[in-house]
């Protein structure tokens, strides 16, 4: 049933019609007001008085997590007897009526492109995954949601839609996987024109694979897990794995300049992208060749990458693929403290011998990882036991300062062996000790699971969010310290008693690294948790930038980080962007208001 009738492309190969893991009716499989699959979530089992993770999709599924509750109680002073349930799906009549004229609706209908005016369809395409988004879904309603959702199935559908929107002055907001954490997907409030949410999910074929040049041409709506699954079947991988790759789309990656966990081996989206098409009101922006590099004036691919839906719709992307690596091994090293771990990361980068992935969790995250250990695998592993274990077994390590580096090696067996040897010996120079494959593997697995924890937290008055930055090596340590201190100070002045701020280094480069922060707090004592969170995150970002860090490494600007855009790119940069915008989209139909508030 996958490909009913083989379609042949220009290269005389079969187009792969991908059956996506996520159905067109997203809400059938995914939560309408939280992260990920409906069947997968952390729940508090009051009968057993403990927390569990449901479903079988992830390795910790249906295992008891006996340490979690105690930890949460102690660190967040949570009262498990009083959950704050989220509101139910609003009934159809509660949704705002679609603001669309009969003429425009007729024009869309005439295009013969699938569409929906249903409230819930529109609501779940009105947001991304920021704390603000989820909190709003659980407790209130968005100021503005799209008026209509359309599902084009190919490039030419998009061309027609964009032309129609431009002619009839309707707004188009591209929607990929809806995983943005920058406010990029949200509708501009105060937009009086009809807003069309252009859902790319049905435009998800792999149009062709070029085995000689190792590239594949895909439609932009394909999501990460589908792409990987299909490529794997053919013995390839794209190697692009952002932590959201189960749900985020190729078009979204390009539009936000995404970065995957394994970028050391495969590169970030800008390294992977060979050719791209973007449909704008002025026509299609693309190049006439599929070459590895081009010296031809400023590279307009970089106008497309990071455009965040504001300049046009990305429809087709040619990306690099690689043969699947034979060997795939995890690893981990523990360090006495974060400073030592970071120094080791720096040295690895200096020697340019990074494995596929190398990450460093600080002490807070290290501990949290331990807390999430299911009982079945470790008997009675409470932190005190752990203390004894490490203090005695690994002499000189302090449980309250130590941290862990997780590693992923990929390649030929011999190459992996050589890499391991090198990394562990560098680790040793910085006082690190190998801590096994399982610890490493768990670390990566938890990355996917941790996204689910916020939904449970929200039930118990804890709000949580993450934010990231990139920073030169020499400023990294101070940046981490200062941001933590700023959060501590600000929590104090906001009257927040229970909070958590921790960080990890998630990527390394020649000239610097990426820091990823997690922030959460018990909001019992504050009036408006989302506003307070925004204040905290703003202070943190101000501090990040003062410490020489960036506005964002991969989450993008969206609406959330607009206030730092001009400072980052200079006023000339702003004007240049605006000029581009004016040229490509003179009527501002891609009125996402991302990057800067575009009043054209």
């Amino acid at each position, binding site marked *: 049933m996958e490909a009913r009738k083989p379609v042949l492309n220009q290269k005389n190969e079969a187009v792969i019609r991908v059956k996506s893991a996520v159905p067109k009716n997203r809400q059938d499989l995914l939560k309408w007001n939280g992260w990920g699959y409906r069947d997968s979530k952390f729940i508090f089992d009051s009968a057993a008085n403990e927390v569990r993770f449901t479903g079988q999709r992830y390795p910790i599924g249906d295992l008891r997590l006996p340490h979690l509750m105690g930890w949460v109680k102690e660190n967040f002073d949570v009262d498990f007897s009083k959950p704050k349930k989220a509101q139910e799906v609003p009934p159809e009549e509660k949704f705002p009526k679609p603001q669309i004229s009969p003429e425009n609706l007729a024009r869309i209908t005439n295009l013969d492109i699938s569409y929906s005016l249903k409230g819930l369809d529109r609501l779940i395409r009105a947001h991304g995954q920021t704390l603000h988004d989820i909190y709003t879904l659980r407790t209130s309603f968005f100021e503005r949601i799209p008026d209509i959702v359309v599902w084009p199935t190919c490039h030419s559908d998009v061309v027609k839609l964009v032309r129609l929107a431009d002619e009839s002055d309707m707004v188009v907001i591209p929607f990929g996987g809806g995983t943005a954490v920058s406010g990029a997907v949200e509708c501009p409030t105060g937009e009086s024109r009809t807003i069309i949410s252009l859902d790319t999910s049905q435009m998800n074929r792999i149009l062709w694979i070029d085995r000689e040049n190792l590239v594949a041409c895909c439609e932009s709506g394909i999501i990460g897990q589908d792409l990987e699954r299909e490529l794997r079947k053919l013995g390839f991988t794209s190697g692009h794995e952002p932590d959201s790759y189960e749900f985020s789309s190729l078009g979204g990656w390009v539009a936000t300049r995404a970065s995957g966990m394994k970028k050391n081996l495969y590169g970030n989206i800008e390294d992977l992208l060979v050719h791209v098409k973007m449909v704008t009101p002025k026509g299609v922006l693309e190049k006439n060749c599929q070459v590895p590099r081009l010296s031809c004036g400023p590279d307009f691919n970089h106008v497309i990458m990071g455009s965040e839906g504001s300049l046009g719709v990305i429809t087709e992307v040619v990306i690099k693929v690689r043969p699947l690596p034979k060997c795939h091994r995890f690893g981990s090293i523990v360090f006495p*403290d*974060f*400073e030592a771990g970071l120094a080791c990361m720096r040295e690895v980068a200096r020697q340019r011998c990074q494995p596929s992935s190398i990450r460093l969790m600080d002490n807070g995250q290290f501990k949290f990882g331990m807390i999430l250990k299911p009982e079945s695998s470790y008997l009675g592993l409470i932190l005190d036991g752990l203390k004894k274990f490490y203090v005695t077994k690994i002499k000189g390590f302090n449980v309250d*300062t130590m941290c862990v580096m997780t590693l992923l090696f990929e390649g030929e067996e011999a190459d992996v062996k050589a890499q391991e040897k090198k990394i562990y010996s560098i680790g040793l120079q910085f006082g690190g000790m190998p801590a096994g494959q399982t610890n490493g593997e768990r670390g990566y697995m938890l990355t996917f699971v941790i996204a689910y924890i916020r939904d449970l937290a929200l039930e118990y008055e804890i709000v949580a969010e993450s934010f990231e930055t990139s920073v030169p090596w*020499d*400023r990294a340590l*101070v940046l981490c*310290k*200062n941001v933590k*201190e*700023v959060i*501590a*100070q600000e929590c104090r002045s906001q009257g927040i008693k229970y909070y958590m701020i921790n960080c990890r280094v998630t990527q390394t480069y020649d000239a610097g690294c990426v820091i990823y922060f997690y922030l959460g707090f018990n909001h019992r004592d504050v009036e408006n948790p989302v506003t307070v969170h925004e204040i905290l995150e703003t202070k943190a970002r101000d*501090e990040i*930038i*003062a*410490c*020489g860090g960036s506005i964002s490494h991969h989450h993008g600007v969206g609406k959330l980080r607009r206030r730092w855009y001009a*400072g980052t790119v200079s006023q000339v940069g702003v004007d240049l962007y605006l000029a581009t915008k004016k040229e490509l989209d003179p009527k501002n139909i891609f009125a996402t208001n991302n990057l800067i508030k575009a009043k054209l």
Partner: protein
Amino acid sequence: MCSSSRRYQDILAPRKTECSNFMWASRQLNPQVAFKQAKKPSPQYHKDEVVKCPKIQELLITLSEKEQVTKEVLEGRVRNILDEIGYNKKLKVVRWLAVVLTKICNRICSGIYLNEDAILQLKSQMGTCPVIFVPSHRSYADFILMSFMCFTEDVAIPAIAAGMDFHGMWGMGTVLRDTGAFFMRRSYNDDHLYWTTFKQYVYQLVTKGDLPLEFFIEGTRSRTNKSLTPKYGLILMILRAFFLSQVPDVLFVPINISYDRILEEKLFAFELLGIPKPKESTSGFFKSLSIVKEKFGSIYFDVAEPISAKKFFGPDLDRTLHNLQPIHMQEITDYEKKLIPSLAHEIVYKQQKHCIITTFNLLAIVLHNNLTSGRNLLSVDEIIDEILGLKKVIEKFGAYVFMDDPRKCVLEALEVHNNFVRVNEEGKVTLVWDEIVVGKVNVSKLKAHELSEKTITFSVPFMLLQIYINPTLHYFVDLAVLVLIVKHQRAQSQDELFANYHFLRSLLSQEFVTFNTREKMEFTSALAHAVDLNLLSRNQELYDLGENKQLEEIIYNCIDCFIFTYFVVCSVILELSRVIEEKTILAKVQEEIEIKINEGKGFIHPYSLSLDTITNCLNALAGQNVLTKSRKSGSVTYEINDTKVLFIKNRLEQYVTPAQVLQEKFESVQLHLKNKL
């Protein structure tokens, strides 16, 4: 700050009752550090880091090419410099010193008071960023007492920026170093390697140190017992780390240390007159300590709320300016330098507002007024009444007067200061002149004019008295200026009043430290107080003198002598050549004033001879570009703009007490003097 909410504990009291100070001094310590570091840094670690840092290393490479010396030799030089600078930490010495100090304090002090709540509060805020203690500086004892206080309160003993004069004291230098002092050469030498090393050392302590830092923002001990204009050098070095975002914040803790009696009072009185002080030698220092038979009353610490650099500068400060280029190549911008004065002044302001007014401060005002205004001298009972009246007034301005039982306090104050204030045979409180003996003065060491022994003998008690009046003046000065204006010019509108106030207050800005941004506010509040106290009265749009003649007299007498000196300075420099050395001006002004004192035509307050006042005046004039100050090989010269000086002199002249009044005063003082001399 509400004065009634202040509470103080005597931290010496437990030392007086416990059976062994030794036990206490050798107790297990768990001091609160300022900026917790992953690994506890050692004094040696700091020095090593400074040598290793890119800034120094790159400088050494450049220097070695320029001077044709190997880098190793230069590195040796840096290490030597660091050994001269660097602090040490020897717990044994600290404990030993604690014992000795307790013994001394128990003998000569009645108490060491501290607002302990503030320390507790501060301790709870410490640990996450550099903390800088910024005490007022009135005595050498400040150094040691600060450390003593920290030791008592279980706060990590700070690394203290000390002048090189201490370094020279044999024994004392080492002891101070071992308890955390680090040493800074006097400025005005431009040894590039030295200063780069020193700045880097401070930067190292701020960014990687865990101890609090301590420095005296006034730069030197104030000889007059009133605040000095803050210096910007060290605070800038400290803030560098914050401007470059290398620390999350910096907390400055203004601290006021007030003394019932300053150890060096006599020395200061002499110094203010220009009679050279003995070089700070160990013997000299101990000599001042060897007066252990004397009483020094109490010492008061008031720790103010910390000022967060981050909050203070707020969004005015754009730290992203330093995002390009490596950190060690970053230079502080001019804009950042311009931000410093406001913070420095805020710290001094807080120090002032946290001062403790002692019984003797008030007694000094009353006695001074009696002496110079032809009043009868007062008995102890009478003086208590007046002190209580004055206490009420000064408390209105937010001052905190440390006085529980007035009689007890007054008697104690008289006992403590009985070297120059006593109750005479008639039971009246008065100054003592006869016991001051001036030895032979080495003329070559004089700072200014050679005053006659007669003048000195006459002046010293007045100088001493003024030293104890001075700490109260920042409460009165704005009021005094208003009274002065109206008294000499008659009723005027608020605008006129402000214009005149602005003129005088800016001229006195070094004398009574103030920062222009506060001017309007202080004017308004002083005016309101003046009306409230009936010093001025408002008649429709005009302000005239009020009915409160007694207070008017007291307040007027407070700044009278300053105005006089400023006037003489202007007159004198007009008669000198266009470019003059500072020393010449000082001598000339003193000479002029001495003549006037001895002429017998009117009472000239001996404090008018104060070199401090003269220099303040010169600095204020230079600040207003009336004079141009320059420094050549250690000596200061001024270039004079005659027209501008003349203008100021004429304007000042209106405020100088008329001859006839001076004559009356003269007679009254003579009367009192005759009794004694």
